């Protein structure tokens, strides 16, 4: 196992989160918004993976290398589920409003 500096990894993860936030806040297309969301989730998963590779041994659970990996797998599944739901929403929105512009869906009564 090589030891990469924590700072670099966290910088990568932060960069991805920043990109994700930027995308969520500014993208008008719903699908691009979901992609940005996905990038953010991937940043989180990456962080979990890193800390699984270089465990910080504070408590017994954090010393075990599988903790981070387990969480990463669960979150990948979670992300996939969430994207599925998001795509369903997009399809429904497109059916009713005829657009995928996020700003168009501004009312509960579509």
């Amino acid at each position, binding site marked *: 196992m090589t030891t990469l500096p924590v700072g670099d990894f966290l910088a990568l993860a932060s960069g991805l989160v920043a990109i994700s*936030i930027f995308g*969520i*806040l*500014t*993208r008008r297309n719903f699908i691009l*918004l979901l992609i940005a969301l996905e990038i953010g989730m991937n940043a989180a998963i990456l962080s979990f993976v890193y800390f699984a590779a270089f465990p910080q041994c*504070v*408590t017994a659970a954090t010393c075990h290398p599988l903790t981070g990996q387990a969480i990463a797998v669960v979150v990948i599944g979670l992300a996939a589920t969430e994207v599925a739901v998001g795509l369903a929403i997009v399809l429904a929105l497109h059916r009713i409003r005829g657009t995928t512009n*996020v*700003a168009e*869906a*501004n*009312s*509960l009564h579509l």
Partner: protein
Amino acid sequence: MLASLFGWAFLVPLLPALAFIVIGLFGPRLRRLEYGGWIAVGAAFVSMVLAVLIALGEMASPDTYTSLSYTWLSLPANPTFPYGFSLVIGTLVDPLSSLMLIVVTVVGFLVLLYSIGYMHHEHGLPRYYAELSLFLTAMIGLVLSNNLLEFFLFWELVGVCSYFLIGFFYEKPSAASAAKEAFLITRIGDILFLLGIFIFFYVYASDGPAGLHWASSGFLFAYGNVPFLAGSLGANTPLLTIAGLCILAGAAGKSAQFPLHVWLPDAMEGPTTVSALIHAATMVAAGVYLLAMTSIFLGFTPTDQLAIVAIGGFTTLFAATMAVVNTDIKRVIAYSTISQLGYMVLAVGAGFAMVGLYHLFTHAFFKALLFLAAGSVIHAIGTQDLFKMGGLKRHLRVTGAAFAIGGLALAGIPPFAGFWSKDDILSSVYSVTGSHPDYWPFLLMAMAAVFLTGYYIFRVWFLTFSGDRTRDPTLPTPHEGPWVMQVPLIILSGFAIGAGLLIFIPGFANLFLLPGGVTALGIPPTYGTTDILLSALGVALGGGGILTAWALWGNGRIFRLPEESVWNSARTVLVNRYYFKVAYDAVGARAVYSVARAADFVDQFVIDGTVRGIEQLFSRISDRMRRIQSGVVSDYAAYVVGGLLAVFVLLLLAGPYLVNRIGGG
């Protein structure tokens, strides 16, 4: 034997009260009974018979004071009233009240009878007869009341009935306004009257004959045959002076004395019969009656007496000057009433309460006669403007004669009624000017008014009845009214001729006895040398007034003042009633109204403004906050990101502290 009737005195006001209820409930259905008119006349007739019988009983057994009371409130002793406090309602039959009973019931009956004919063509007759019956009830109750508070109660009721009756033609704005004005101005007097009553109650909380205390006995006027508070007065204490002035204010309001006189001429908006009953014979006499009762049973301090004499004397001349130029037949008679009431007030103030009431007695008859005669003229010709009348004595003989008799009585020409009483007042007041030299100016004012009285009343007679002026051709041909209108005129003319002479009958003079059987000063009038000279002077002044009126207005002459003369500007001042109404309007409408408007401004902009401001504040806050829910998903995401950042910053700042607390490395 008749004295046994005294216990039934409460029936006298009760019968018109029943008439009021019956007419009020069933009036509109009684078309054949003149919509309740004959019921009212019947009740008034029975009351009159009963009242005359009571008066005859009082004349036969003079100095009998029968007081029946029912105590309706009784409180135990307390610091202000050391022997307790009770309120009673009851009747007092004494010479004074019997005298007033005659006046009220006789004039009331005659006026009601006259109304049958006069008001025949009007609308709202049940209301009219009901209100008149209620008025009669209240006035009789006032006269028969045996304690000060009950007096005040009926006083107020009389004022209310006056409001109703002045505003009888309520669709006319001027009538409604006149009714309101009358009520408000008498109200000012009433409030001060009530204050005076309270001061008297407070001062005499424990006074009275041994064992009987005024407060715990119910503030009665008389105890047996003597006043309850005999001999307590005379001291010029400030509190009693104020109380007396307050009573004077109440009387001035009700009797239209200066400065509360402005409502009476405007009250002529009511029907003429109402003016005859209320504003000539009875209600306005209540003020004088109050002054007489207070002077006999409670007493006035010397300062108060001077004030009363001043107001009375001044008003006599003041009102007479305004009567001289007026062009409305009823308003001239109204000013005449104010002026004659001034005479009565003058007499009571000088200490001659019974002489004042003697004049009240005669005045009631001839003033009612004048008003009813004027009503007959109005009924015949349809206008009240003096300059549209003329030459009516050919068509209205009975009315013309009646008005002339009333005018002669008013001007004080012997042997008509007014001469005896007015002369008695003048010589009585003259007789005390030695010890009260400050009464002189007011006596002189009263004498000057005698000349003006003769002048103005005969100016009216000549303008109305004599001459051959062409009248307004659109007015109907005048003719006399029906018998129900002529009979009261004839009866009242008889009284106007003979009422003054009644005083010389010893039995009748018993009605003027003071408590304890004391003969009142000036009753019956005595005629020493100075008295005869004064009488001659009075007759000369009155006759001079009549001759002046004949010279200026008789035989169809019309007297016009030259345009530029100083008299014309004086005349303008008089016609405008010395601008009193303008002044009162300025005070009331401008000054008081400005205060009201300022208060309204504070209420609307300061208080309501604060409330509305708070509402606006919350409204705007919520408006802004509502925009958080924009519906745009990106915004929500932004809020989430913002929250996240806040949490990061917090953790950054609080990190070391939390690590220390949670422990571990």
